[in-house]
């Protein structure tokens, strides 16, 4: 593991002036864009293709999810502030903002879990209708991405508390931030398509 990391650090970049790891992260995110585009495209084709659809504002708790959207946006702010902190060499600030981001991520997933349980309690599931199938698929995959991000954040927080990230070496924080903000961007689109339109 350490050997692999050292090998990457020592290797020249793929594109002049660009870190290979950052380049790979952007490529990964590009593939994720296509993944979610496929899912959203399917949703649009089904919903506007004449399928029976409930009145979304009556079926879903839009005010609660609007608050949850706000929470995810705030978590993006704390994530970018963590990055700004380590760019200024502030390791304590980094840890504080990373912990805040992690807690906000957990809150987001918890509220989404509450929403899922409420819907399941009302008899709406992925098996009952096309609405349920597309809703649980889209929010489920997004929630899985947030949950994966939270798990990685736990690791990153522990590393930051051990002083692993410094002014000179904090590419890991930048990569973590790229992923986290991407998940936020996906939710911005999903919130509009699933809850508001």
């Amino acid at each position, binding site marked *: 593991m350490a050997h692999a990391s050292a090998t990457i650090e020592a290797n020249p970049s793929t594109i002049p002036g*660009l870190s290979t790891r950052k380049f790979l992260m952007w490529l990964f*995110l*590009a593939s994720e864009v296509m993944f979610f585009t496929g899912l959203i495209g399917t949703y649009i084709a089904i919903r506007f*293709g004449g399928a029976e659809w409930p009145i979304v504002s009556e079926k879903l708790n839009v005010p609660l999810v609007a608050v949850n959207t706000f929470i995810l946006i705030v978590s993006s702010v704390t994530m970018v502030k963590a990055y700004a902190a380590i760019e200024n060499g502030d390791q304590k600030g980094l840890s504080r903002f990373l912990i805040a981001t992690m807690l906000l991520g957990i809150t987001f997933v918890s509220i989404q879990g509450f929403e899922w349980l409420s819907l399941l309690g009302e008899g709406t599931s992925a098996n009952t209708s096309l609405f349920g199938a597309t809703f649980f698929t889209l929010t489920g995959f997004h929630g899985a991405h947030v949950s994966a991000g939270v798990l990685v954040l736990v690791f990153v927080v522990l590393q930051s508390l051990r002083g692993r990230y410094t002014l000179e070496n904090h590419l890991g924080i930048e990569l973590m931030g790229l992923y986290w903000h991407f998940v936020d*961007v996906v939710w911005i689109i999903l919130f509009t398509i699933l809850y508001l339109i």
Partner: protein
Amino acid sequence: MAETQAQIAESAHAARPQPNYIRVFAFLAVLTAVEVFTAFTIHTQWLKVSALVVLAITKAGLVVAYYMHLRFEKAPLRIIALAPLILVFILASALFLERTLAR
């Protein structure tokens, strides 16, 4: 001589400006409130959908440009990052055409 990752990280650190993240957050918060307001007050479907799509794209653009720092990245990376949007556009157009022609 080829640049090493450490040299790249150092040069990127020296060159990158730090935007006003709180101001961007304020824009995102206001746009989210406008979105919810739009969804519940505009009843003309095409107008509501158009407004919500524009608002969502604006919010996503702000996050990508300022929080993901794409605005401050080098041109090759910006091209790589934005390339999938061409495919997104093709898929969206195909769906739109399919729906329009099916009528």
